[in-house]
Protein backbone atom coordinates (compact mmCIF):
# COMPACT_ATOMS: atom_id res chain seq x y z
CA UNK A 1 0.00 0.00 0.00
CA UNK A 2 1.20 3.51 -0.77
CA UNK A 3 1.33 5.88 2.21
CA UNK A 4 2.11 9.58 2.44
CA UNK A 5 4.51 10.76 5.14
CA UNK A 6 2.09 13.66 5.64
CA UNK A 7 -0.44 11.15 7.04
CA UNK A 8 2.09 9.51 9.37
CA UNK A 9 4.05 12.40 10.86
CA UNK A 10 4.25 16.10 11.59
CA UNK A 11 7.40 18.15 11.19
CA UNK A 12 9.22 21.43 11.79
CA UNK A 13 12.31 22.75 10.04
CA UNK A 14 14.88 25.47 10.62
CA UNK A 15 18.37 26.56 9.64
CA UNK A 16 21.98 26.53 10.80
CA UNK A 17 24.15 28.28 8.24
CA UNK A 18 23.64 26.64 4.83
CA UNK A 19 22.13 23.52 6.44
CA UNK A 20 18.40 23.01 6.94
CA UNK A 21 17.19 20.65 9.66
CA UNK A 22 13.89 18.82 9.44
CA UNK A 23 12.53 17.15 12.57
CA UNK A 24 9.90 14.52 11.73
CA UNK A 25 7.63 13.32 14.56
CA UNK A 26 5.42 10.23 14.24
CA UNK A 27 1.72 10.97 14.74
CA UNK A 28 1.38 7.67 16.64
CA UNK A 29 4.15 6.01 18.69
CA UNK A 30 3.46 2.67 16.98
CA UNK A 31 4.30 4.23 13.60
CA UNK A 32 7.77 5.35 14.70
CA UNK A 33 9.57 2.01 13.98
CA UNK A 34 8.27 2.17 10.41
CA UNK A 35 9.80 5.62 10.00
CA UNK A 36 13.11 4.41 11.45
CA UNK A 37 13.19 1.55 8.92
CA UNK A 38 11.90 3.30 5.81
CA UNK A 39 12.82 6.95 6.17
CA UNK A 40 16.56 6.47 5.77
CA UNK A 41 19.07 9.24 5.09
CA UNK A 42 19.51 7.81 1.56
CA UNK A 43 15.80 7.91 0.87
CA UNK A 44 15.56 11.51 2.06
CA UNK A 45 18.63 12.45 0.00
CA UNK A 46 16.92 10.94 -3.06
CA UNK A 47 13.72 12.86 -2.30
CA UNK A 48 15.64 16.16 -2.24
CA UNK A 49 17.93 15.35 -5.20
CA UNK A 50 18.52 18.51 -7.23
CA UNK A 51 17.16 20.72 -4.43
CA UNK A 52 20.16 20.49 -2.11
CA UNK A 53 23.86 20.45 -2.98
CA UNK A 54 25.22 18.46 -0.02
CA UNK A 55 24.52 15.23 1.82
CA UNK A 56 21.88 14.20 4.35
CA UNK A 57 22.52 13.10 7.94
CA UNK A 58 19.95 11.40 10.18
CA UNK A 59 19.64 11.24 13.99
CA UNK A 60 17.13 9.17 15.98
CA UNK A 61 15.13 10.43 18.96
CA UNK A 62 13.07 7.42 20.11
CA UNK A 63 12.03 9.34 23.23
CA UNK A 64 10.14 11.87 21.07
CA UNK A 65 9.24 9.33 18.33
CA UNK A 66 11.20 11.65 16.09
CA UNK A 67 13.93 11.64 13.46
CA UNK A 68 16.12 14.67 12.80
CA UNK A 69 17.52 15.19 9.32
CA UNK A 70 20.28 17.63 8.39
CA UNK A 71 20.10 18.70 4.75
CA UNK A 72 23.45 20.22 3.84
CA UNK A 73 23.74 22.85 1.12
CA UNK A 74 19.99 23.47 1.24
CA UNK A 75 19.77 27.24 1.60
CA UNK A 76 21.68 28.90 -1.26
CA UNK A 77 24.46 29.88 1.13
CA UNK A 78 22.10 30.44 4.06
CA UNK A 79 21.28 33.38 6.28
CA UNK A 80 21.75 36.80 4.72
CA UNK A 81 23.59 35.43 1.66
CA UNK A 82 20.63 33.42 0.39
CA UNK A 83 18.41 34.73 -2.40
CA UNK A 84 15.71 32.13 -1.71
CA UNK A 85 12.19 32.88 -0.52
CA UNK A 86 12.76 30.21 2.12
CA UNK A 87 16.21 31.41 3.14
CA UNK A 88 15.78 29.98 6.65
CA UNK A 89 14.49 26.58 5.57
CA UNK A 90 11.17 27.04 7.33
CA UNK A 91 9.16 24.95 4.88
CA UNK A 92 11.51 22.08 4.08
CA UNK A 93 9.34 20.41 6.71
CA UNK A 94 6.31 20.07 4.47
CA UNK A 95 8.50 19.37 1.42
CA UNK A 96 9.69 16.22 3.21
CA UNK A 97 6.12 15.30 4.20
CA UNK A 98 5.32 15.02 0.45
CA UNK A 99 7.28 11.77 0.40
CA UNK A 100 5.22 8.70 -0.56
CA UNK A 101 6.40 5.16 0.09
CA UNK A 102 5.22 1.57 -0.15
CA UNK A 103 4.39 -0.54 2.89
CA UNK A 104 3.46 -4.23 2.57
CA UNK A 105 -0.34 -4.52 2.82
CA UNK A 106 -0.32 -6.80 5.87
CA UNK A 107 1.90 -4.44 7.85
CA UNK A 108 -0.09 -1.39 6.72
CA UNK A 109 -3.28 -3.09 7.90
CA UNK A 110 -1.75 -4.11 11.24
CA UNK A 111 -0.59 -0.54 11.87
CA UNK A 112 -3.88 0.91 10.52
CA UNK A 113 -1.99 3.21 8.16
CA UNK A 114 -4.03 5.62 6.06
CA UNK A 115 -3.64 4.97 2.33
CA UNK A 116 -2.23 7.64 0.02
CA UNK A 117 -4.83 6.60 -2.55
CA UNK A 118 -7.85 7.23 -0.32
Amino acid at each position, binding site marked *: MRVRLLDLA*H*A*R*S*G*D*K*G*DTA*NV*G*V*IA*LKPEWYPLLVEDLTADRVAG*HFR*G*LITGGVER*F*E*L*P*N*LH*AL*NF*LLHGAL*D*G*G*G*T*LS*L*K*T*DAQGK*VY*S*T*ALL*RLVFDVPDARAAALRLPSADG
Partner: protein
Amino acid sequence: MTRIVRVASGQGFWGDWLEAPRRQVEGGPVDYLMLDYLAEVTMSILQKQKERDPNMGYARDFVGAMESVLPAVIARGVRVIANAGGVNPPACAAAIRAAAGKAGAAGKLHVGVVTGDDLLPRLDQLMADGHALAHMETGTPLASVRDRVLSANAYIGSTPIVEALRRGANVVVTGRSTDTALTMAPLRFEFGWGDTDWNRLAAGIIAGHIIECGAQCSGGNCLHDWRSIPDLANVGYPIVEGHEDGTFVVTKHPGTGGRIDVPSVSEQLVYEMGDPHSYITPDVIADFSSIRLEQAGENRVRVFGIQGRAPTDKLKVSIAYRDGYKAVGSLVYVWPDALEKAELADRVLRERLDRLGLRFDHILTEFVGASATHGRLAGDAGRNAPEVQFRIGVRGQDRAAVERFTREIVPLVLNGPPSVTGFAAGRPKVEEIVAYWPALIDKTVVQTAVEIL
Protein backbone atom coordinates in the same frame (compact mmCIF):
# COMPACT_ATOMS: atom_id res chain seq x y z
CA MET B 1 4.59 21.08 47.90
CA THR B 2 7.93 21.81 46.33
CA ARG B 3 8.88 25.33 45.42
CA ILE B 4 8.17 26.45 41.87
CA VAL B 5 10.05 29.15 39.95
CA ARG B 6 8.19 30.56 36.97
CA VAL B 7 10.15 31.88 33.99
CA ALA B 8 8.02 33.48 31.29
CA SER B 9 9.09 34.03 27.68
CA GLY B 10 8.10 37.45 26.37
CA GLN B 11 10.03 37.79 23.11
CA GLY B 12 11.30 35.12 20.72
CA PHE B 13 13.31 37.46 18.48
CA TRP B 14 13.76 41.18 17.85
CA GLY B 15 10.54 42.08 16.10
CA ASP B 16 8.32 39.63 17.98
CA TRP B 17 4.86 40.62 19.30
CA LEU B 18 5.06 43.91 21.23
CA GLU B 19 2.10 42.87 23.41
CA ALA B 20 3.75 39.71 24.71
CA PRO B 21 5.94 41.04 27.59
CA ARG B 22 3.08 42.94 29.24
CA ARG B 23 0.65 40.04 28.76
CA GLN B 24 3.13 37.70 30.44
CA VAL B 25 3.51 39.77 33.61
CA GLU B 26 -0.18 40.72 33.87
CA GLY B 27 -1.80 37.39 32.95
CA GLY B 28 -0.87 35.48 36.12
CA PRO B 29 1.99 34.79 38.49
CA VAL B 30 5.54 34.85 37.07
CA ASP B 31 8.89 35.31 38.81
CA TYR B 32 11.09 36.06 35.80
CA LEU B 33 10.47 37.52 32.37
CA MET B 34 12.96 36.35 29.73
CA LEU B 35 13.37 38.33 26.50
CA ASP B 36 15.50 37.10 23.59
CA TYR B 37 16.43 39.76 21.03
CA LEU B 38 19.49 38.48 19.22
CA ALA B 39 19.74 36.49 16.00
CA GLU B 40 22.94 35.55 14.21
CA VAL B 41 23.51 38.80 12.32
CA THR B 42 21.71 41.19 14.69
CA MET B 43 25.01 42.09 16.35
CA SER B 44 26.42 43.49 13.10
CA ILE B 45 23.39 45.74 12.56
CA LEU B 46 23.79 47.01 16.11
CA GLN B 47 27.52 47.53 15.56
CA LYS B 48 26.79 49.75 12.55
CA GLN B 49 24.35 51.78 14.68
CA LYS B 50 26.95 52.18 17.42
CA GLU B 51 29.52 53.43 14.90
CA ARG B 52 27.10 56.20 13.91
CA ASP B 53 26.14 57.02 17.52
CA PRO B 54 28.15 55.73 20.50
CA ASN B 55 24.96 55.73 22.63
CA MET B 56 23.26 53.21 20.35
CA GLY B 57 23.97 49.57 19.53
CA TYR B 58 21.29 47.80 21.59
CA ALA B 59 17.74 46.52 20.91
CA ARG B 60 15.67 49.66 21.32
CA ASP B 61 12.40 47.68 21.47
CA PHE B 62 13.52 46.59 24.92
CA VAL B 63 13.00 50.11 26.30
CA GLY B 64 9.32 49.98 25.31
CA ALA B 65 9.02 46.46 26.71
CA MET B 66 10.50 47.63 30.04
CA GLU B 67 8.08 50.55 30.18
CA SER B 68 5.18 48.15 29.70
CA VAL B 69 6.30 45.80 32.50
CA LEU B 70 7.69 48.39 34.92
CA PRO B 71 4.72 48.29 37.34
CA ALA B 72 5.07 44.51 37.69
CA VAL B 73 8.83 44.76 38.20
CA ILE B 74 8.49 47.40 40.90
CA ALA B 75 5.31 46.37 42.69
CA ARG B 76 5.43 42.59 42.34
CA GLY B 77 9.14 41.88 42.17
CA VAL B 78 9.18 40.29 38.71
CA ARG B 79 12.78 40.21 37.47
CA VAL B 80 13.66 40.70 33.82
CA ILE B 81 16.52 39.04 31.93
CA ALA B 82 17.25 40.13 28.35
CA ASN B 83 20.09 39.91 25.85
CA ALA B 84 18.93 43.30 24.54
CA GLY B 85 22.30 44.91 25.28
CA GLY B 86 23.63 43.96 21.86
CA VAL B 87 27.06 45.54 21.38
CA ASN B 88 26.40 48.21 24.00
CA PRO B 89 24.88 46.82 27.24
CA PRO B 90 25.86 49.91 29.32
CA ALA B 91 23.96 52.22 26.94
CA CYS B 92 20.98 49.89 27.05
CA ALA B 93 21.05 49.97 30.87
CA ALA B 94 21.25 53.77 30.82
CA ALA B 95 18.23 53.94 28.50
CA ILE B 96 16.02 51.81 30.72
CA ARG B 97 17.15 53.70 33.83
CA ALA B 98 16.16 56.91 32.10
CA ALA B 99 12.78 55.41 31.17
CA ALA B 100 12.25 54.33 34.79
CA GLY B 101 13.17 57.84 35.95
CA LYS B 102 10.55 59.36 33.66
CA ALA B 103 7.98 56.96 35.11
CA GLY B 104 8.87 58.14 38.64
CA ALA B 105 10.64 54.91 39.49
CA ALA B 106 14.22 56.14 39.66
CA GLY B 107 16.18 54.16 42.21
CA LYS B 108 13.80 51.20 42.08
CA LEU B 109 15.61 49.47 39.23
CA HIS B 110 18.86 47.68 39.91
CA VAL B 111 20.25 46.91 36.50
CA GLY B 112 22.87 44.21 36.19
CA VAL B 113 25.02 44.80 33.13
CA VAL B 114 26.95 41.85 31.69
CA THR B 115 29.91 42.65 29.45
CA GLY B 116 32.97 40.86 28.12
CA ASP B 117 31.45 39.06 25.11
CA ASP B 118 32.53 41.76 22.65
CA LEU B 119 35.79 40.62 21.04
CA LEU B 120 35.95 43.23 18.27
CA PRO B 121 38.29 45.63 20.11
CA ARG B 122 40.61 42.69 20.90
CA LEU B 123 40.40 40.93 17.55
CA ASP B 124 43.82 41.81 16.13
CA GLN B 125 45.57 40.97 19.39
CA LEU B 126 43.75 37.63 19.62
CA MET B 127 44.74 36.77 16.05
CA ALA B 128 48.34 37.85 16.72
CA ASP B 129 48.29 35.53 19.75
CA GLY B 130 47.49 32.60 17.47
CA HIS B 131 43.71 32.40 17.65
CA ALA B 132 42.84 31.68 14.01
CA LEU B 133 39.06 31.94 14.51
CA ALA B 134 38.68 29.54 11.59
CA HIS B 135 35.21 29.21 10.05
CA MET B 136 33.54 26.24 11.77
CA GLU B 137 32.29 24.72 8.51
CA THR B 138 35.00 25.61 5.97
CA GLY B 139 38.08 25.80 8.23
CA THR B 140 39.21 29.05 6.58
CA PRO B 141 41.12 31.35 8.99
CA LEU B 142 39.44 34.68 9.79
CA ALA B 143 42.47 36.52 8.38
CA SER B 144 40.99 36.05 4.90
CA VAL B 145 38.10 38.44 5.70
CA ARG B 146 39.58 40.41 8.64
CA ASP B 147 39.37 43.78 6.86
CA ARG B 148 35.63 43.30 6.32
CA VAL B 149 34.69 42.22 9.88
CA LEU B 150 31.88 44.27 11.46
CA SER B 151 31.37 42.53 14.78
CA ALA B 152 32.75 39.61 16.81
CA ASN B 153 31.05 38.33 19.96
CA ALA B 154 31.56 35.24 22.08
CA TYR B 155 28.41 33.39 23.10
CA ILE B 156 28.49 33.53 26.90
CA GLY B 157 26.64 31.36 29.38
CA SER B 158 24.63 31.63 32.59
CA THR B 159 27.39 32.42 35.12
CA PRO B 160 27.48 36.25 34.85
CA ILE B 161 23.66 36.40 34.85
CA VAL B 162 23.57 34.33 38.03
CA GLU B 163 26.11 36.70 39.58
CA ALA B 164 24.01 39.73 38.65
CA LEU B 165 20.93 38.15 40.27
CA ARG B 166 22.94 37.25 43.38
CA ARG B 167 24.05 40.87 43.69
CA GLY B 168 20.46 42.03 43.68
CA ALA B 169 19.74 43.00 40.07
CA ASN B 170 16.05 43.06 39.19
CA VAL B 171 16.85 43.66 35.53
CA VAL B 172 19.78 41.90 33.83
CA VAL B 173 20.99 43.19 30.47
CA THR B 174 23.51 41.16 28.51
CA GLY B 175 25.17 41.22 25.12
CA ARG B 176 25.62 37.95 23.22
CA SER B 177 24.40 35.57 25.93
CA THR B 178 23.09 32.32 24.54
CA ASP B 179 19.32 32.37 24.20
CA THR B 180 19.03 29.37 26.50
CA ALA B 181 21.14 30.88 29.31
CA LEU B 182 18.48 33.57 29.80
CA THR B 183 16.12 30.87 31.10
CA MET B 184 18.62 28.54 32.75
CA ALA B 185 20.33 31.27 34.81
CA PRO B 186 17.34 32.18 37.01
CA LEU B 187 16.60 28.49 37.67
CA ARG B 188 20.25 27.88 38.56
CA PHE B 189 20.26 30.95 40.81
CA GLU B 190 16.98 30.17 42.61
CA PHE B 191 17.72 26.50 43.22
CA GLY B 192 21.43 26.90 43.86
CA TRP B 193 22.44 24.32 41.25
CA GLY B 194 26.19 23.70 41.26
CA ASP B 195 28.33 24.47 38.25
CA THR B 196 28.93 20.75 37.66
CA ASP B 197 25.33 19.69 38.26
CA TRP B 198 25.18 18.61 34.62
CA ASN B 199 21.74 17.03 34.52
CA ARG B 200 19.99 19.99 36.11
CA LEU B 201 21.93 22.55 34.12
CA ALA B 202 21.01 20.62 30.95
CA ALA B 203 17.37 20.66 32.04
CA GLY B 204 17.55 24.44 32.41
CA ILE B 205 19.05 24.72 28.92
CA ILE B 206 16.29 22.56 27.42
CA ALA B 207 13.67 24.63 29.25
CA GLY B 208 15.29 27.62 27.55
CA HIS B 209 15.27 25.95 24.14
CA ILE B 210 11.55 25.20 24.49
CA ILE B 211 10.52 28.79 25.34
CA GLU B 212 13.21 30.86 23.55
CA CYS B 213 11.11 31.16 20.39
CA GLY B 214 8.09 32.48 22.25
CA ALA B 215 4.76 31.15 21.01
CA GLN B 216 6.42 28.63 18.71
CA CYS B 217 5.92 26.03 21.47
CA SER B 218 2.41 27.14 22.47
CA GLY B 219 0.53 26.79 19.20
CA GLY B 220 2.28 29.27 16.92
CA ASN B 221 3.66 27.82 13.66
CA CYS B 222 2.43 24.43 14.85
CA LEU B 223 1.66 22.01 12.02
CA HIS B 224 0.15 19.27 14.19
CA ASP B 225 -3.64 19.46 13.90
CA TRP B 226 -3.27 23.18 13.17
CA ARG B 227 -6.92 23.83 12.35
CA SER B 228 -7.99 22.95 15.89
CA ILE B 229 -5.55 25.26 17.72
CA PRO B 230 -7.86 27.72 19.52
CA ASP B 231 -7.81 31.50 19.55
CA LEU B 232 -4.41 32.27 18.02
CA ALA B 233 -5.31 35.98 18.05
CA ASN B 234 -5.03 35.77 21.83
CA VAL B 235 -2.11 33.32 21.89
CA GLY B 236 -0.47 32.72 25.26
CA TYR B 237 3.32 32.80 25.36
CA PRO B 238 4.99 29.96 27.25
CA ILE B 239 5.99 29.79 30.91
CA VAL B 240 8.38 27.29 32.49
CA GLU B 241 7.49 26.17 36.02
CA GLY B 242 10.86 24.95 37.25
CA HIS B 243 11.49 22.59 40.16
CA GLU B 244 14.63 22.13 42.23
CA ASP B 245 15.20 18.60 40.85
CA GLY B 246 15.47 19.89 37.26
CA THR B 247 12.03 18.74 36.14
CA PHE B 248 9.70 21.41 34.82
CA VAL B 249 6.28 22.03 33.35
CA VAL B 250 5.69 24.12 30.22
CA THR B 251 2.41 26.02 30.43
CA LYS B 252 0.77 29.39 29.70
CA HIS B 253 -1.59 31.76 31.45
CA PRO B 254 -5.25 30.75 31.81
CA GLY B 255 -7.66 32.35 29.37
CA THR B 256 -5.08 32.73 26.61
CA GLY B 257 -5.22 31.10 23.18
CA GLY B 258 -2.94 28.60 21.53
CA ARG B 259 -2.18 25.11 22.80
CA ILE B 260 0.55 23.44 24.80
CA ASP B 261 0.63 19.70 24.33
CA VAL B 262 3.21 17.00 23.66
CA PRO B 263 3.11 17.56 19.87
CA SER B 264 3.49 21.36 20.13
CA VAL B 265 6.46 21.03 22.50
CA SER B 266 7.98 18.25 20.38
CA GLU B 267 7.89 20.46 17.28
CA GLN B 268 9.79 23.17 19.13
CA LEU B 269 12.30 20.67 20.54
CA VAL B 270 13.37 19.60 17.03
CA TYR B 271 13.53 23.20 15.74
CA GLU B 272 17.04 24.18 14.61
CA MET B 273 18.37 20.93 16.01
CA GLY B 274 21.76 19.55 15.00
CA ASP B 275 23.11 16.41 16.67
CA PRO B 276 20.51 15.83 19.40
CA HIS B 277 22.99 13.96 21.60
CA SER B 278 25.26 16.98 21.85
CA TYR B 279 23.54 20.33 22.20
CA ILE B 280 26.64 22.30 23.13
CA THR B 281 26.39 25.41 25.31
CA PRO B 282 29.01 27.28 27.36
CA ASP B 283 27.57 25.76 30.58
CA VAL B 284 26.83 22.15 29.69
CA ILE B 285 26.23 19.70 26.84
CA ALA B 286 22.57 18.69 26.84
CA ASP B 287 21.33 15.37 25.45
CA PHE B 288 17.98 15.80 23.69
CA SER B 289 17.59 12.04 23.37
CA SER B 290 17.10 11.87 27.16
CA ILE B 291 14.08 14.19 27.27
CA ARG B 292 10.78 12.71 28.44
CA LEU B 293 7.48 14.50 27.87
CA GLU B 294 4.06 13.84 29.35
CA GLN B 295 0.76 15.69 29.27
CA ALA B 296 0.09 16.86 32.83
CA GLY B 297 -3.26 18.57 32.39
CA GLU B 298 -4.73 20.96 29.87
CA ASN B 299 -2.00 23.15 28.36
CA ARG B 300 0.58 21.60 30.69
CA VAL B 301 3.47 19.43 29.53
CA ARG B 302 5.83 17.94 32.10
CA VAL B 303 9.47 17.56 31.03
CA PHE B 304 11.79 15.20 32.92
CA GLY B 305 14.63 12.68 32.63
CA ILE B 306 17.09 15.13 31.11
CA GLN B 307 20.79 14.31 31.10
CA GLY B 308 23.80 16.50 30.51
CA ARG B 309 27.57 16.33 30.62
CA ALA B 310 30.57 18.64 30.96
CA PRO B 311 30.97 21.29 28.25
CA THR B 312 33.97 21.79 25.98
CA ASP B 313 36.82 24.22 26.69
CA LYS B 314 35.73 26.46 23.77
CA LEU B 315 33.17 29.18 23.25
CA LYS B 316 31.44 29.78 19.96
CA VAL B 317 32.10 33.20 18.44
CA SER B 318 29.58 34.98 16.25
CA ILE B 319 31.41 37.09 13.66
CA ALA B 320 29.75 39.24 11.00
CA TYR B 321 31.50 40.60 7.91
CA ARG B 322 30.66 42.47 4.71
CA ASP B 323 30.28 40.14 1.76
CA GLY B 324 29.07 42.05 -1.30
CA TYR B 325 25.60 43.14 -2.36
CA LYS B 326 22.26 41.65 -3.31
CA ALA B 327 18.85 42.63 -4.63
CA VAL B 328 15.65 40.69 -5.19
CA GLY B 329 12.73 41.89 -7.34
CA SER B 330 9.46 40.45 -8.56
CA LEU B 331 6.51 40.78 -10.95
CA VAL B 332 3.20 38.92 -11.01
CA TYR B 333 2.03 37.10 -14.18
CA VAL B 334 -1.61 36.17 -14.49
CA TRP B 335 -3.89 33.56 -16.17
CA PRO B 336 -3.99 32.32 -18.83
CA ASP B 337 -0.61 30.57 -18.95
CA ALA B 338 0.72 32.54 -15.99
CA LEU B 339 3.72 30.28 -15.38
CA GLU B 340 4.70 30.16 -19.07
CA LYS B 341 4.67 33.96 -19.24
CA ALA B 342 6.76 34.21 -16.08
CA GLU B 343 9.27 31.74 -17.54
CA LEU B 344 9.55 33.83 -20.71
CA ALA B 345 10.08 36.97 -18.61
CA ASP B 346 12.95 35.21 -16.85
CA ARG B 347 14.64 34.28 -20.16
CA VAL B 348 14.19 37.81 -21.52
CA LEU B 349 15.61 39.43 -18.39
CA ARG B 350 18.59 37.11 -18.21
CA GLU B 351 19.41 37.76 -21.87
CA ARG B 352 19.35 41.51 -21.24
CA LEU B 353 21.62 41.18 -18.18
CA ASP B 354 23.96 39.13 -20.31
CA ARG B 355 24.03 41.68 -23.14
CA LEU B 356 24.75 44.43 -20.63
CA GLY B 357 27.81 42.44 -19.64
CA LEU B 358 26.74 42.36 -15.99
CA ARG B 359 28.44 39.65 -13.98
CA PHE B 360 27.15 38.28 -10.70
CA ASP B 361 28.32 35.60 -8.27
CA HIS B 362 24.83 34.15 -8.39
CA ILE B 363 21.42 34.67 -10.04
CA LEU B 364 18.38 32.84 -8.64
CA THR B 365 14.91 32.68 -10.20
CA GLU B 366 11.84 31.39 -8.37
CA PHE B 367 8.22 31.08 -9.47
CA VAL B 368 6.14 31.75 -6.36
CA GLY B 369 2.83 29.92 -6.63
CA ALA B 370 4.37 27.13 -8.69
CA SER B 371 7.66 25.87 -7.30
CA ALA B 372 9.53 28.50 -5.24
CA THR B 373 9.82 26.56 -2.00
CA HIS B 374 9.31 22.89 -2.94
CA GLY B 375 10.93 22.88 -6.38
CA ARG B 376 10.14 19.85 -8.54
CA LEU B 377 8.42 18.19 -5.55
CA ALA B 378 5.53 20.61 -6.09
CA GLY B 379 4.62 18.80 -9.34
CA ASP B 380 2.69 20.35 -12.22
CA ALA B 381 -0.07 22.15 -10.32
CA GLY B 382 1.67 25.48 -11.01
CA ARG B 383 0.95 25.09 -14.76
CA ASN B 384 -2.69 25.98 -14.00
CA ALA B 385 -2.06 28.61 -11.34
CA PRO B 386 -4.25 31.72 -11.62
CA GLU B 387 -1.18 33.86 -11.00
CA VAL B 388 2.53 33.27 -10.51
CA GLN B 389 5.08 35.62 -8.97
CA PHE B 390 8.30 35.81 -11.00
CA ARG B 391 10.95 36.46 -8.36
CA ILE B 392 14.57 36.99 -9.32
CA GLY B 393 17.59 37.87 -7.21
CA VAL B 394 21.28 38.50 -7.80
CA ARG B 395 24.32 38.81 -5.59
CA GLY B 396 27.87 39.91 -6.29
CA GLN B 397 30.76 42.06 -5.14
CA ASP B 398 30.11 44.84 -7.69
CA ARG B 399 27.53 47.24 -6.28
CA ALA B 400 27.05 49.03 -9.62
CA ALA B 401 26.11 45.78 -11.35
CA VAL B 402 23.54 44.92 -8.67
CA GLU B 403 22.22 48.49 -8.90
CA ARG B 404 21.83 48.16 -12.68
CA PHE B 405 19.99 44.83 -12.26
CA THR B 406 17.33 46.60 -10.16
CA ARG B 407 16.57 48.90 -13.15
CA GLU B 408 15.92 45.99 -15.53
CA ILE B 409 12.82 44.48 -13.88
CA VAL B 410 10.01 47.06 -14.09
CA PRO B 411 10.57 47.79 -17.82
CA LEU B 412 9.33 44.23 -18.48
CA VAL B 413 5.83 45.50 -17.66
CA LEU B 414 5.77 47.32 -21.02
CA ASN B 415 8.43 45.50 -23.01
CA GLY B 416 8.03 41.87 -21.92
CA PRO B 417 5.34 39.14 -21.84
CA PRO B 418 1.66 40.15 -21.24
CA SER B 419 -0.78 39.94 -18.29
CA VAL B 420 1.68 41.35 -15.79
CA THR B 421 1.12 43.38 -12.64
CA GLY B 422 2.44 43.70 -9.10
CA PHE B 423 5.09 46.33 -9.78
CA ALA B 424 3.73 49.13 -7.55
CA ALA B 425 6.66 48.97 -5.15
CA GLY B 426 8.99 50.05 -7.99
CA ARG B 427 12.54 48.84 -8.28
CA PRO B 428 14.04 46.77 -5.48
CA LYS B 429 16.59 48.06 -2.99
CA VAL B 430 20.24 47.08 -3.11
CA GLU B 431 21.29 45.59 0.21
CA GLU B 432 24.78 45.16 1.54
CA ILE B 433 25.24 41.53 2.55
CA VAL B 434 26.41 41.03 6.12
CA ALA B 435 27.46 37.40 6.31
CA TYR B 436 27.89 35.17 9.34
CA TRP B 437 31.20 33.58 10.30
CA PRO B 438 30.92 31.07 13.17
CA ALA B 439 34.19 30.22 14.94
CA LEU B 440 35.50 28.80 18.21
CA ILE B 441 37.83 30.33 20.79
CA ASP B 442 39.40 29.11 24.03
CA LYS B 443 37.16 29.83 26.99
CA THR B 444 40.09 31.16 29.00
CA VAL B 445 40.49 34.26 26.83
CA VAL B 446 36.92 35.49 27.41
CA GLN B 447 36.38 37.17 30.76
CA THR B 448 32.91 38.46 31.54
CA ALA B 449 32.20 41.28 33.99
CA VAL B 450 29.10 42.27 35.91
CA GLU B 451 28.22 45.75 37.08
CA ILE B 452 25.08 46.78 38.99
CA LEU B 453 23.84 50.24 38.01
